[in-house]
């Protein structure tokens, strides 16, 4: 069956007994090269399909997801989703987009260039061997993902996209005799393969650093210091911040400490954060969302003031706030005016933090964890790499205590972030 026929068959089945229905068909083909033992060892080609059926009857909602698209599987899935909906308690907050809207998008390379994928990956391995002889690639993948995604619902929404993108990840460490460094990694999405992979993200800096990190020092005792945080490390703190304070779960459960702070200062004045899954900066996209809306950019925090939560339609109906223009994690932080060197010079005592291995923050935002791939900074100078060093603080306070933001930013293909200096975090050694 064609995608059109599959979706219409499913939606027609749901509409027969449900008040509202929605169906989404995602068909993808992935071509993936994998590196192991320093060579390209595995080629994977996988075909995937996912048909999600959702139904609301008398305020009760059910979801059923299958990866089959033949007539009898769809028929069974329609029965299952109705059973699932009937089993749920009624909740008037459940809903789907209800403005008829038919639009489509085509973005990115639709076919993989296999030979070029192989060439770029083997070229990277050769570059590493030549320039960073102590670096060992633990694993690396180069994937081309082509995906056709279409969502229809009972209110006349019909949104579709055909997207193609290359995704590259590498996980590596350094090894010299019996010394082993911490691992580090880089992941990015690419619209094409026109450039050498070694030029992507901060890879060259990271490769240099893991070689340095074969010989780490230790810090003794604890102190309140500054953290100069890399963009790759920052993104994980932003994810935690969003989960803790601005997303559906913390807002609906009432645990968010920012639930009553819309329009108020919640972060440092020069901090502006938006999410933009449709940004021209990104080769990845989430053009429409699971509620059936075309997504738009969303200013979350502007000049330190909370402008929007990141709420789905259900989250908005549940909390009484506005539905967010999107609720996807495509984060952009406005650049500052500091150079990286200026930022290092500004740190009296602290760490250059490239990666953080931390526990899930507490509901009040307290966090602690191990500083990875990091360096000790003293009197404006990077002194030496350190290991077995912990950092603790509170997410809310941390974003209120931003000292500076770099003008340089790194684009991973789905986030665009600067370096940032946070002050007043607890740093402890052995």
């Amino acid at each position: 069956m064609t995608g059109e026929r599959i979706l219409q068959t499913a939606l027609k089945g749901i509409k027969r007994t449900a008040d509202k229905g929605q169906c989404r068909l995602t068909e993808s083909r992935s071509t993936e090269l994998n590196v192991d033992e320093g060579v390209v060892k595995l080629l994977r080609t996988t075909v995937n399909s996912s048909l999600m059926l959702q139904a609301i009857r008398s305020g009760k909602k059910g979801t059923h997801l299958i990866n089959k698209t033949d007539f009898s599987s769809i028929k069974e899935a329609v029965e299952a989703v109705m059973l699932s909906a009937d089993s749920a308690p009624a909740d008037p907050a459940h809903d789907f987009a209800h403005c008829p809207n038919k639009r489509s998008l085509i973005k990115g390379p639709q076919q993989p260039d296999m030979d070029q994928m192989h060439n770029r990956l083997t070229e990277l391995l050769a570059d590493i061997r030549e320039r960073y002889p102590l670096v060992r690639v633990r694993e690396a993948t180069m994937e081309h993902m082509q995906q056709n995604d279409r969502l229809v619902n009972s209110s006349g929404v019909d949104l579709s996209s055909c997207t193609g993108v290359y995704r590259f990840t590498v996980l590596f460490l350094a090894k010299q005799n019996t010394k082993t460094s911490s691992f580090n990694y880089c992941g990015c999405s690419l619209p094409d393969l026109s450039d050498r992979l070694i030029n992507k993200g901060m890879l060259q800096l990271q490769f240099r650093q893991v070689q340095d990190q074969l010989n780490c020092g230790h810090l003794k005792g604890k102190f309140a210091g500054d953290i100069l945080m890399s963009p790759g490390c920052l993104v994980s703190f932003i994810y935690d911040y969003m989960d803790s304070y601005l997303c559906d779960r913390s807002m609906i459960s009432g645990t968010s400490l920012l639930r009553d702070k819309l329009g108020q200062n919640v972060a440092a004045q020069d901090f502006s954060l938006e999410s933009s899954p449709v940004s021209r900066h990104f080769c990845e996209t989430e053009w429409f969302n699971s509620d059936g809306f075309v997504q738009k950019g969303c200013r979350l925090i502007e000049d330190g003031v909370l402008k929007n939560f990141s709420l789905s339609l259900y989250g908005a109906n549940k909390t009484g706030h506005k539905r967010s223009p999107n609720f996807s994690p495509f984060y952009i932080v406005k650049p500052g005016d500091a150079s990286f060197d200026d930022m290092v010079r500004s740190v009296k005592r602290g760490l250059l933090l490239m990666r953080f291995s931390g526990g899930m923050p507490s509901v009040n935002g307290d966090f602690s964890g191990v500083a990875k791939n990091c360096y000790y900074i003293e009197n404006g100078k990077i002194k030496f790499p350190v290991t077995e060093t912990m950092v603790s603080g509170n997410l809310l306070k941390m974003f209120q205590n931003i000292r500076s933001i770099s003008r340089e930013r790194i684009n991973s293909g789905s986030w665009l972030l600067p370096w940032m200096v946070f002050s007043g975090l607890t740093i402890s050694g052995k």
Partner: protein
Amino acid sequence: MIDLDLRHSAPDFKHYTELRLQENLEHRLNLVNGSLMFNSRTMKSGLSARTYINGSWGFASNPVIDKQTVKSVIKEAGSNAGYLRRKSSLGKSDLPSSRRKAVDVPKEPKKHFTIAELVAFLTGLDRMIMARFPKLTSRSLSLYSISMEKKLITSCGSELHSLLPRIMIYVDLTMEYKKEPISLFDLYGGYGFFGQHFTSPDALMPAIGKQYQALEQKTRGVYPKAGVHTCILDAELGGILAHEAVGHTVESDLVRSGSVAGDCWQQLVASPIVSLADFAHTALGKPCPVPVRIDDEGTVAEDAMIIENGILKSYLHNKESAMDFKMPATGNARAFLDSDEALVRMRNTAILPGNHKIDDMIASIDEGYYLIRPGNGQADATGEFMFAVTMGYEIKKGKLGRALKDVTVSGVAFDFLKTVDMVSDELSWCCGGFCGKKQPMIVGMGGPAVRGRINVGGR
């Protein structure tokens, strides 16, 4: 699962090949303060083939399950391996052959629980919690069930039919203290089906009552002092240590890429009272939470005694690494979805029990901490680890003191294990281990309580 006899396809194998038919059935419910936020059921199944030619691997998968697709995934996997061999021939020899057959399909209980009954159970439990503990400011209850059914044949003649079911209920409770939310989660369930773990919401209430008491203590809790302290890691933390900080470093693919364990073969890496194993399906005469009898390469799963009396004795292998290391394959190759290739994964990893009583261990500490409930954990190729601890107590003069707020502990696995001087005499398994390494995977982790010196990230 759709029934298809894979054995008819054996003549299509031109090289070393694994052919797998797999179905994962998952169910998720999430109730937040009485509102059902998620009510979803997912059924994914499909066919995959993986082929090896002189060191190059090809993999192909497709969700369509019929004879024609069997032929096409076998052909595509062979073609993918051939592409890589043409690009750069690694010239490796054939994989070791093993021919084994196993069926491990636990019988489903006669009583089948409908979605309506599962929702009713969870909402009933939520109402009881709300009625009994009115001071709670937020409740989140989740139910997650998964059953993973696999049929496998290999060109070596191995056959497997297995079913791995697990059911979990996660209970996350929050209270406010001085206008700050404090929470504590716990999980219930384990290997098997719903009715084998849960009879009525009432029956869960005593355990949730203890969780609530612990949360009350935690609201008045203190931050530990930052620094290195003598601590007791209770069974679940011992399990996460065994899995994250030791188990990953001895996975053969990590050893090959430079993990610290590669340099410690047959060396003392722990106190002589520490032994640590990755069990295949049975530990100390009892079934493990994640039984694996034949892995996804068709190898018979054997226990791997990783550390024996402090000495590093074994790595975890798939067929290829066992051949490269000239060691026996341990049956650690496992895949999560039909569209995933088998990776070197742990099964049931635990420190073996010793001969100390937990009360004596607490009494032996003048000043330290008893760390009980883990959150998440991560470890490095160096063995440096980090675990979140969501429940614990001070120990002062041999007695338990105030509860602790959330904290993170860290250390270097082999350094910590060398400081272990007491190991309790009971092995208990965490009921819900999940591991992430390219793909997710259900794992078992557990252990006794151990006493050692660890870095506590307090204030």
